[in-house]
């Protein structure tokens, strides 16, 4: 992997090759060791070390992009020449936003050497061997344990330079019973000593143990308590289809025309905050803009949207620093944090006469973006709540419901929150109790 100095040297070289043009360079490196396991044994164990350089060259009213993994001088010269050639082919079009300039260099190094040592290929095998041994007969483990180091360097022809380095560990653990039924837990950590593998396995195992002899219930409207993983699943889609300025400009967002309106229950506040210690910070975006904190939903009122340079130019506002270098998609908030409520999950269960406790969702997708209508299936544990107590497991079901409707039927939000997997880093979200959640199908899965 390239050090900060080597990466900056490479950026300088590329920019000198592109002299006379407005240019920016993004160098993204990742070294990931990932151990997959199934049936309580390792079946795939891999390591990949890759560096990808993306060069964007802009004229006044056109832009081209080249990316390459060939980092030698000859390869980079060819890539720059290709980008310039592409630019010359392009017809004149929309005015291009100017490059970011005049911002202070950002340099963030959160790399933790102890974390890497604690989760190298041998340690990962040892962690898993111990975890498999902790399971009772008749239960098997499936999932992955990985360690990845990421380095991102940015430079442009206006003299801006940024660098960020971090590493992290991810665990997913699905425990399945030979008699049917499963449980799931996920863990992410950026610091040695934080990741508690036995505890995660224990949570998944306890779920699997409870998730047996599932009752089949009929679809329809049910009160649900969505655990944080399920809330994180929903928030990811909301971010993708709703909180992007591009989605609003294209009238695809469910918030189109509803800016500054009360769209959700007043207990819903969602921010995008890369400085929150639970989200794994990426302090600048892929166009070099410092990442701003966004209040996406403020007490149920739609407020901020995520902008990259192009969508900001279109709306005549500054970029918020949320480019993911996908011009067709626009900007996407990556570090979602949802405000906690004042009820514990236990209290939510105790206050529920008849409802369902949902662990997480599987294979969600957007049915109708303008109505925020999503579909997906429950997975790895749905439990019936009767008279304030968990009263057995329920077979998986499909929901099809509008988030706009669901988040206006909030009965409670949990006081405790949990990190859940996001697009680039984590979300940090509570559990939620929602009335009349619309289940539309059932399955034997």
């Amino acid at each position, binding site marked *: 992997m390239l050090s900060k100095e080597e990466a900056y040297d490479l950026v300088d070289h590329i920019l000198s090759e592109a002299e006379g043009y407005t240019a920016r360079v993004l160098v993204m490196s990742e070294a990931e060791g990932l151990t997959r396991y199934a049936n309580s044994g390792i079946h795939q164990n891999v*390591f990949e070390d890759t560096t990808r350089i993306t060069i964007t060259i802009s004229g006044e009213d056109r832009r081209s992009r080249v990316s390459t993994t060939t980092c030698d001088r000859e390869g980079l010269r060819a890539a720059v020449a290709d980008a310039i050639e592409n630019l010359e082919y392009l*017809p004149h079009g929309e005015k291009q936003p100017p490059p970011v300039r005049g911002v202070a260099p950002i340099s963030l190094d959160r790399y933790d050497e102890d974390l890497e040592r604690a989760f190298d290929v041998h340690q990962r095998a040892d962690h898993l061997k111990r975890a498999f041994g902790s399971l009772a007969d008749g239960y098997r483990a499936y999932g992955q344990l990985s360690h990845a180091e990421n380095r991102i360097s940015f430079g442009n022809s206006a003299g801006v330079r940024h660098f960020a380095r971090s590493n992290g560990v991810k665990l997913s653990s699905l425990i399945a019973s030979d008699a049917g039924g499963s449980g799931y837990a996920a863990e992410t950590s950026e610091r040695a000593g934080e990741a508690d593998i036995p505890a995660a396995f224990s949570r998944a195992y306890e779920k699997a143990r409870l998730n047996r002899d599932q009752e089949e219930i009929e679809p329809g409207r049910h009160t649900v308590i969505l655990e944080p993983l399920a809330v994180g699943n929903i928030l990811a889609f909301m971010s993708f289809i709703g909180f992007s300025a591009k989605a609003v400009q294209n009238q695809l967002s469910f918030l189109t025309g509803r800016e500054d309106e009360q769209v959700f229950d007043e207990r819903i506040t969602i921010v995008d905050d890369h400085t929150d210690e639970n989200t794994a910070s990426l302090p600048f975006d892929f166009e070099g803009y410092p990442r701003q904190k966004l209040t996406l939903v403020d007490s149920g009122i739609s407020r901020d949207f995520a902008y990259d340079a192009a969508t900001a130019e279109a709306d005549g506002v500054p970029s918020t620093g949320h480019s993911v270098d996908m011009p067709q998609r626009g900007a996407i908030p990556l570090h979602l944090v949802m405000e906690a409520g004042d009820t514990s999950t236990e209290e939510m269960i105790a206050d529920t006469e008849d409802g369902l406790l949902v662990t997480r969702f599987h294979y969600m997708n957007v049915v109708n973006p303008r109505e925020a209508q999503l579909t997906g299936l429950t997975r790895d544990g749905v439990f019936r709540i009767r008279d304030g107590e968990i009263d057995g497991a329920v077979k998986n079901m499909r929901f099809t419901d509008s988030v706009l409707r669901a988040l206006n039927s909030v009965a409670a939000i949990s006081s405790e929150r949990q990190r859940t997997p996001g697009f680039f880093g984590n979300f940090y979200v509570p559990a939620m109790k929602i009335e009349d959640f619309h289940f539309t*199908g059932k399955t034997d899965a």
Partner: protein
Amino acid sequence: MKERLSAVLADLSQSGVEYADIRVHDIVEEAISTENREVQDLSTSRSYGYGIRVFADGALGFAASQEFDRIGETAERAVEIARATRPVQRKPVQLDRKEAIVDHYSTPIEIDPFEIPREEKLQLLFAAEERMHESATLLRTEGNMNFRREEKIFADTDGSYITQLLYESGGGISAYAASEGDMQQRSYPSSFRGNHATAGYEFVRDLYLVENAARTAEEAAALIEAEECPSGYFDVVIDSSQLTLQIHESVGHPVELDRVMGYEAGMAGESFLDPGMIDFQYGSEHVNIVADATIPGGLGTFGYDDEGVPAQRVDIVREGRFRNFLTSRDTAPEVGQISNGTSRADGWGRIPIVRMTNINLLPGDASFAELIGGIECGLYLQSNKSWSIDDRRLNFQFACEIAYEIREGQLTGKIFKNPIYTGITPEFWRSCDAVGDESQWQMFGTPNCGKGEPMQVAHVGHGSSPSRFRHVKVGVSDVE
């Protein structure tokens, strides 16, 4: 390169590994997207590197890098990973037997897509977008083209040395119409960036994007005025542009043997099938499905998979009965077979896993008029808009761009917006009572099939004719 790879493989053999292979991929891609007659993106990318897979003491290790001057270190890392794996395996990996092959395969193409000036490609998309805007009041139009050239080398300790040169070309257009509170889209020839094939630029030329632009635009605008699709149980004819995803999700994935063995349980899920279900009644007698990596033009067509196994055509479902899984060298021995050549990686950095090739529903004998004519009251569904299926591939739900009303055996001309249909995989395929004939048979390429950890995106194909299914659940608004 051959000598260099041979030297690394010889060192690995001498170090005591039972088997090793090296794949070198050099992938060049070009992506063009336009929006409202402006260039949204014009980008090219190159990905060049290698992956080394090692079996030592019955365990697998894999390491990949783009630094060719450190290939020896990468090989050592792969061995170290395999040896770290061994104590935590359930049992040693068994690879099936295969022959050593020295060969070259190239995608047959007429026109190298990278030789066509980008200006010409852009002008084609602009012309199609112009035609869409002339034809209807639209919020937005989009055009896309994607091209890919992949040079691959596969070398192993058995003596195989296979080179391949694979080309892909594809494109499509979309029209979006909006009113207050509603947005509708139509796409041609398919949604999600159009259609893709292993072919040259002739494939994009023959899509006739401009000639199909007006109808696409007019239907998008008409959908804004259309009624919501009713909910209930209907007989439906499903067009190939949607049947592609239906085959993909409810046949292609469940027949992957690695899913059956639990290898994907922690991520994408498993399958409702198990090895004892050969001859299971998967569908009606009209349903004949093959995995065919040899068919010209299919997006899942190649010469050899990424374990050096030749491309094959295999029965998956014959006359409704389940016949075979998709297998790799490490999974096939679990069912007493040898690989049927479906193990592929999405690039040099990832390990090959079981992937679909071209999973094709073979044509039946019904004309389109006969398909429609057999329905008293139903719907003809086109173009996928959304998909979802459970982790054992049973409960599926699809949204389509448009539904055409069928009454008394005729298309009435009325259309509905936001059609959704849902079902359970075997029940659905058993309800198929007619498959369209060969004249209607069409292949669609799916360039975005995700699976595995780290995530891999495979390019696969599906051929089908429009087909008829009885008593299908449409819509969800009536579920109370």
